[in-house]
């Protein structure tokens, strides 16, 4: 079981890489959908140890694989399937994401006791899971910072939220379902609103390129 969990965890990092680095937004969405599927499978695998996590797996299935993927797909129907040119070129970005993922994974895995100092998080496979969750978080943050396309930025936020959600499996597997429902509801509504604003920007400016939002000074 540990081997399966580790394989699923590392596959999540690969899907995050594809979601960030694909210039075609539909391919990026497909990578996100694959990641959501893997995440549901991973939480289900952990549920063998903590039965309360079955509800979490179901929640992830409905929200991440269902609602959030649908919301992004719906937004993509409106316009161009190509990503607006990012701030960082393809090769440097791919190199940065790869280095970031490797660096964060090794750093967190080695120092899990400092960064997530709970008994459970220091044991395998939870240790790997914490490392993967923070790797996803940083990969998503890179997408948010380096991309100009509103939908790609939203996908970055989705990756960050997947990382946050995944960390709960190791840090707080006994958390009440009502609290979890509150967390995922916030996430779904945030994605909906971001896409709604992205739609408004596209309608107003004729592009999803957020680099063109320059009416206000930072």
């Amino acid at each position, binding site marked *: 079981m540990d081997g399966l969990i580790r394989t699923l965890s590392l596959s999540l990092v690969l899907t995050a890489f594809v979601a960030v680095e694909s210039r075609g937004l539909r391919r990026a969405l497909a990578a996100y959908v694959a990641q959501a599927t893997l995440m549901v499978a991973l939480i289900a695998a952990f549920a063998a140890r903590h039965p309360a996590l079955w509800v979490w797996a179901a929640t992830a299935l409905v929200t991440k694989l269902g609602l959030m993927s649908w919301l992004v797909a719906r937004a993509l129907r409106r316009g161009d399937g190509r990503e607006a040119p990012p701030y960082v070129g393809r090769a440097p970005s791919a190199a940065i994401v790869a280095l970031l993922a490797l660096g964060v994974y090794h750093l967190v895995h080695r120092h899990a006791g*400092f*960064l*997530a*100092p*709970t*008994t*459970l*998080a220091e044991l395998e496979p939870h240790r790997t899971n914490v490392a993967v969750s923070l790797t996803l*978080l940083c990969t998503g*943050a890179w997408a*948010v910072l380096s991309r100009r396309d*509103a939908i790609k*930025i939203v996908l970055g*936020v989705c990756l*960050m*939220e997947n990382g*946050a959600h995944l*960390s*709960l499996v190791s*840090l*707080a597997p*006994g*958390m*009440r379902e009502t*609290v979890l429902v*509150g*967390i995922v*509801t*916030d996430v779904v*509504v*945030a994605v909906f*609103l*971001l896409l*709604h*604003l*992205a739609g*408004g*920007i596209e309608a*107003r*400016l004729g592009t999803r390129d*957020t680099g063109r*939002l*320059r*009416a*206000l*000074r*930072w």
Partner: protein
Amino acid sequence: MTGAAAWVPVALLALPVVVAGPVALSGRRLRPWLWIAACAAALALAAAQAAAVLARGPIPALGGLRVDGLAAVMALLIAFLAFACSVYAAGDLPGAHAGEPERRARLEARLPAFTALFLVLESTLFWTVMTDDIVLLWVALEATTLASALLVSFYWDERALEAGWKYLLLLTVGITAAFFGCVLLYAGAAPHLGEASALRISNLARVADALPPHLALVACLLLLVGFGTKAGLAPFHPWVADAHAEAPAVMSAFLSGVIIKVPFVGLLRVWSVFGPRQPALEDALLALGGFTMLAGAALAAAQDDLKRMHAYSSVSQVGFVAAAIGLGAPFGHYAAVFFIVSHALAKGLLFLVTGAVTHAALGHRGLAALGGLGRGMPVTAALAGVGALSLAGMPPFGGFVAKLQVALAAADAGAWAVLAAAALASLLTMAYMTAMVQRTFLGAPRTPELALAPPREVPLPMLLGMALLAAGVVALGLAPQGLDGLLAMAAGDAGGR
């Protein structure tokens, strides 16, 4: 605690959400009255709740709610500001920004959603200050961002969309740090308290000594980044000016008055527990607070746009709150809560004044274009003077007492660098507030169209909304002891309840 009192927080939380639907569905004439009635009812409930807490101590309620002194003060503040904003909005919305008839019609079509979302936002703010659940605190705080995002971008033009996008994106990403902080605190406490009890913020003090020190440190620093982003502390403040400047006046007042203040409830509760155990945490808040005071004041002084000036001024003022929390309990925490109340009233008032100026001055809000408005708008000018003097820390207004308390707390703690930063920031505040009043209301109009058609006083509901907040500013300055019981309880309750 009696059963009836335990239902008050639940009713307070539910009322705005329940009323939001009927308010949105009601007709154009009835809607403002329903909105005002809902806010008045919420204010009555918040006052009853505060009286009950003062008389009988904290109220544990359903759904993980717990109302102590701090929650009662904040709920009362939220309800009062919401009420003043609802009265003001009856005369303003959709505001002078509306422009040509076609755009005005489009904005009026969005008003039902605006009023409904405003009420939902009020409810999420109540939830944030009253929850006793460490993870639901994060959920509620994020819910305040979600409920307010479309209010910030209400005008749905290029500028408003940019402001709304930045607001939602930066706060959603920033607050993820706080999520990890909340979860770490819960995960650390769970082995000692059990899964259910570990979620309770009121139980943190019981388990604080059992947590590994570096867990508390990591969790608190993550909370500082996440909640600091929401509070607009520098350097996490880039969203503040854009969101305040492009939102309608009532939303700007609500943003500066309470939305950027509620994260301090979380920080106060956590710092009360871990601050004394980890002096580095108090030092971090002192440093961040001092830097924020000066950076915000310098940025405010450089602005021409009235709303951006007030927004950066809010950044500077939340620096005072952060520093006061860093000064520690009980004096620093008392000063922090008093400052929150004082600044909410004064800055809420100044944003409503700016809305009135924009309303009357054909959409102008740049200092370079205004001037001489005091002749046609004497009441608004007087109310602006009250807000500006309070913010500048002049007696006999609330801002004077608030700044004096921070200064005394800093002197008591020997935090001379903070005291110097506060003095310098106060001098800068006095300078740009004086310039604001002088260049807006005195002298002669600097724009030909304002000289040809001098602005007149705004409608009565707008004046009433501003007068309510001005009355609060004056009352807080003349009788600061009026809130003493509740504030002392709030400062003591913050975390070690």
